[in-house]
């Protein structure tokens, strides 16, 4: 999952980036409103963590501009201010949630995950596709009651496919959402991860869940195909 963090307090931004990356997020960092708005409008993110007090453009303005330009990415507002009207304005301007500083990091992570799931139409923390169950809180995937033993990156692939299981996910989309923009990638890496996933998820089961659609991308679904 690709996350945009807009926060001007550098020590806080840096440690949050580190913590979120350890939680499997791909984090883009922006220290001011103008830059944050540019990134949010021009790159695909699964969630945006937005501080309200920012240099150049404040968080509320950024959010309003973003929503006006049609970007529907879930946004979590972060602020140290205590004014309720900021909170109300934030939520009315299209923020999905609101976090007060200082915050509890595990709670922030849970709220971010919840916001992402809700935006993909999956309000419950455990996403199920056929006999495959993915617990987005503990980052554990099970099939038919058996843990699959995925690496962190493999889990990211599976979670992304699971949250978008109604449609085909292109290779480009996977690159955009699972890797940092600064990542100097070799797109073969996707084939490697998909083939690993397929081995761990589908091997030994009678139904095939990971499908490759030539020229289009991948889809995680029970299409009745035998493994």
């Amino acid at each position, binding site marked *: 999952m690709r996350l945009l963090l807009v926060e001007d307090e550098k020590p*806080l931004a840096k*440690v949050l980036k580190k*913590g979120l990356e350890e939680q499997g997020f791909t984090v883009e960092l922006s220290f001011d409103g103008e830059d944050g708005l540019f990134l949010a409008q021009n790159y695909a993110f699964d969630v945006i963590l937005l501080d309200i*007090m920012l240099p150049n453009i404040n968080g509320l303005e950024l959010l309003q501009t973003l929503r006006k330009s049609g970007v529907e990415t879930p946004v979590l507002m972060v602020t140290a201010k205590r004014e309720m009207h900021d909170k109300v304005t934030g939520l009315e301007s299209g923020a999905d949630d609101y976090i*007060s*500083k200082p*915050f509890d990091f595990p709670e922030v992570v849970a709220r971010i995950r919840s916001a992402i799931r809700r935006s993909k139409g999956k309000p419950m923390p455990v996403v199920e596709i056929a006999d495959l169950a993915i617990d987005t809180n503990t980052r554990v995937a099970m099939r038919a009651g058996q843990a699959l033993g995925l690496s962190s990156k493999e889990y990211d692939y599976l979670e992304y496919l699971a949250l978008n299981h109604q449609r085909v996910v292109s290779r480009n989309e996977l690159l955009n959402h699972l890797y940092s923009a600064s990542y100097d990638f070799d797109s073969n890496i996707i084939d490697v991860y998909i083939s690993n996933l397929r081995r761990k998820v589908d091997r030994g089961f009678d139904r095939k869940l990971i499908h490759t659609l030539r020229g289009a991308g991948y889809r995680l679904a029970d299409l009745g195909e035998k493994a």
Partner: protein
Amino acid sequence: MMGPKSISVRLFYWLLGGGIFALLVGGGGLFLEVKAIIYDSLDHTLQSELEIFTGLLHVEDGDLEFEYAETVHGDYIVPRSGHYFQVYIDEIIIADSISLAGEELALSPEQLIAEDQALQIKTYRGNGPAGEPIRLMERSLVFAEHPARVIVAQSVFESEQMLRRLRNFLLLSGIPGILLIATLGQVISRKSLQPLREFSSQIDAIGEKNIETRLSAEKQYKEIGLLATAFNAMLERLKRSLQSREELLSEVSHELKTPVAVIRSHCDIYLQKERPPAEYIEALEVIRESADALGTKIRRLLAIAQTEAELMNASSLEEVDLANCLRRARVTVEPLTREPQIEIAETFEPGLQVRGNPERLIEAFANLLENAIKYNRPKGAVLIASSRQDNLALISIEDTGCGIDLQDIEKIFDRFYRGQGGNRTDSSGLGLGLVKTIIDAHKGHIEVRNRPEGGSCFSITLPLS
């Protein structure tokens, strides 16, 4: 039970008192006027009768005689008719009216009402032959070398009865009059205070939430308009103070919560899994920095709050000699000048006195001097000057340092300004925010500019006492 004094009750009593007084004066005046008219006309009649009777005295064959013929008619011949006369010569009655029926008209000096010296006429009160009240007029004269007195009298029984009736009527009509005045007084006092009640309910409706509301000073009664203007001015002051409190709280909560968030996030994230020691050291260093920043902010806030509270207290203010203050501030920073070899020069105008708290003023000046030394170049100079401009004292502190970034120059007096060069943590100074707080509390003004030849110049004005 004594309630608070009430304007409407007072107004009511004044109106009632005034009304009763007006009734008394009016009624009494009317009564006296009518009485005067009646007696004046009576006296006028009596006087003309006197003239006539005096004219009836004549000398016949050496004897003094009174010509009855003219008077033996009308009321004078009806016994006890209420119209009488009597004429004395040599204190012997030589003539009297038949109406007296032989009685004598007695004059007692106690019953004298008026006396006309020129005409030799005296007016008396008395009783007639029937015991009725009468008014008598006596004229003393010398007739043919004999002392003579002519007395005429008329009953005032009817006049007095009429006046009694008038008095009773006036007294009786006074009761409904007073009741009417009382009612009117109540209505008037309530009516005239109605705008005040309405105004009060308008004020009642204003609270912290709608402090923007202003009372209309137009379309009001003049007195209420004045009150409205005064109230609006007070609301404006309140609003400003609320706003600045609001801003301060918001600023403080942001400034304090941010370093706490940094500390808390580091703890949360670094505790999520075991890490190599180098990572912990890195995290702890950030935590220490944030804790320091937090400590500095708290210290500044407390110092400012304490200073504000102290300077609010008027008893802490005294007459302060500015030059003395500046000199003492200089002494406190002298040790800082040695290593960078900074020269401090001073030009003080003597005798400048301000009203203030000397400790705090020294603290403010010392803060500025410390900055001027700290942000100076080695072997630089600091110039302290004080002078008089009208009723203001002008203090300037100049340095030969690098000056202040233009983008910082406006924020430099903010409570949480971090000092030049971003996160430089100055350990001793409490910041320019405190300096401004102190100068503001002395009704002074502080500003800063960069000198064209380099360095910065802080200028302070303080009202002279």
